């Protein structure tokens, strides 16, 4: 970088810029860490044991809903998908996925609602409703331990690029970008908590702050509110694009759903 006229300030400015890491750099694949590793030993223990993980309460509800008939078609998930432990294995690891009918990627929640309206002829479940969270948690649980897939083809690439742009864009009253904290300053502390790299390996997850289970959408809305930026609605295209980018950024990392986080 050149500084032209302000030559006297050059050494100071250069030193500052070098230390501030102005240019956002992607985390090298080998250095990626799940937020799990930043948690206290005791909190990790809660996630590791299904008997103590509160997220399992939602997973069990999802298991019940899986077999419950719904809608005008009077069909349950099980009627088409049989045993979720077989049919849903590795599914959550490849979402958001391209939906040809919509011509864009959709999240797991949106896919579930697609089945509700299209196959079961039932009303879609509200975002963050108990039932949608339960079904999403149950499906995601079947991918536990499976590495995140990131099959990017020409159809989905533009949406990935849009998500990447959103991740790096400065926004809000504080003029922050996701990358500034989560690519450049992960591991450092903000208000007493360590900044994670922000990989969505555990969603939907039980957040101690929420005292309940929530989706990645809910967490992203929290982030944007914290950044004092505009908060899109649940399921907004910009969120799905961002989720796609986040999952691509976390490719190869293992699904932990339902995770526990502070």
């Amino acid at each position, binding site marked *: 970088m050149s500084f032209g006229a302000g030559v006297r300030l050059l050494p100071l400015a250069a030193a500052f810029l070098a230390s501030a890491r102005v240019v956002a750099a992607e985390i090298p694949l080998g250095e990626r860490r799940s937020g799990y590793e930043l948690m206290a030993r005791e909190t990790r223990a809660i996630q590791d044991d299904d*008997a*103590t993980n*509160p997220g399992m*309460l939602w997973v069990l509800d999802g298991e*019940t809903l899986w077999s419950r008939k719904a809608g005008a078609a009077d069909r349950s998930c099980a009627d088409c998908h049989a045993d979720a432990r077989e049919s849903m294995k590795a599914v959550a690891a490849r979402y958001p996925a391209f939906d040809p009918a919509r011509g864009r990627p959709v999240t797991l929640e949106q896919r579930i609602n697609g089945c509700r309206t299209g196959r079961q002829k039932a009303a879609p479940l509200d975002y963050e409703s108990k039932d949608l969270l339960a079904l999403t948690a149950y499906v995601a649980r079947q991918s536990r331990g499976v590495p995140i897939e990131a099959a990017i083809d020409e159809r989905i690439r533009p949406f990935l690029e849009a998500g990447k742009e959103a991740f790096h864009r400065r926004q809000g009253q504080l003029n922050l970008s996701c990358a500034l904290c989560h690519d450049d300053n992960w591991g450092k502390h903000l208000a007493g908590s360590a900044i994670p790299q922000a990989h969505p390996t555990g969603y939907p997850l*039980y957040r101690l702050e929420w*005292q309940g289970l929530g989706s990645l959408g809910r967490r992203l809305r929290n982030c944007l509110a914290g950044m004092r930026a505009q908060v899109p609605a649940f399921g907004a295209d910009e969120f799905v694009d961002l989720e796609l980018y986040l999952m691509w950024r976390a490719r190869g990392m293992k699904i932990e759903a339902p995770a526990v986080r502070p």
Partner: protein
Amino acid sequence: MARAVVTLPAQAKRGEIIEIKTLAQHSMETGFRRTQTGELIPRDIIRRFTCTYNGVEVYRADLHPAIAANPLIAFTTVATETGTLTFQWVGDNGYSVTEIAPIRVE
């Protein structure tokens, strides 16, 4: 719908100390939180948890608002005889949940 989950071994040797972990789905509203407009949200908590073993109470916990949401209660009991362990959670606003688990003791 899963209102509570209990984890314990299905069988044990007589005299063995077994670990029991229980989870109940409950917001444990403290009664100290306020709405956006300043109104107090009333207390709504689980007040008592009991474990009875073939009808005999072997463990009881009285809970207060300081117990976190979706409470975990983990404890031990001696496997004395084959039978049924009954777990009950009772709380405000008529909350009452019962879970039953069989145990085989040889």
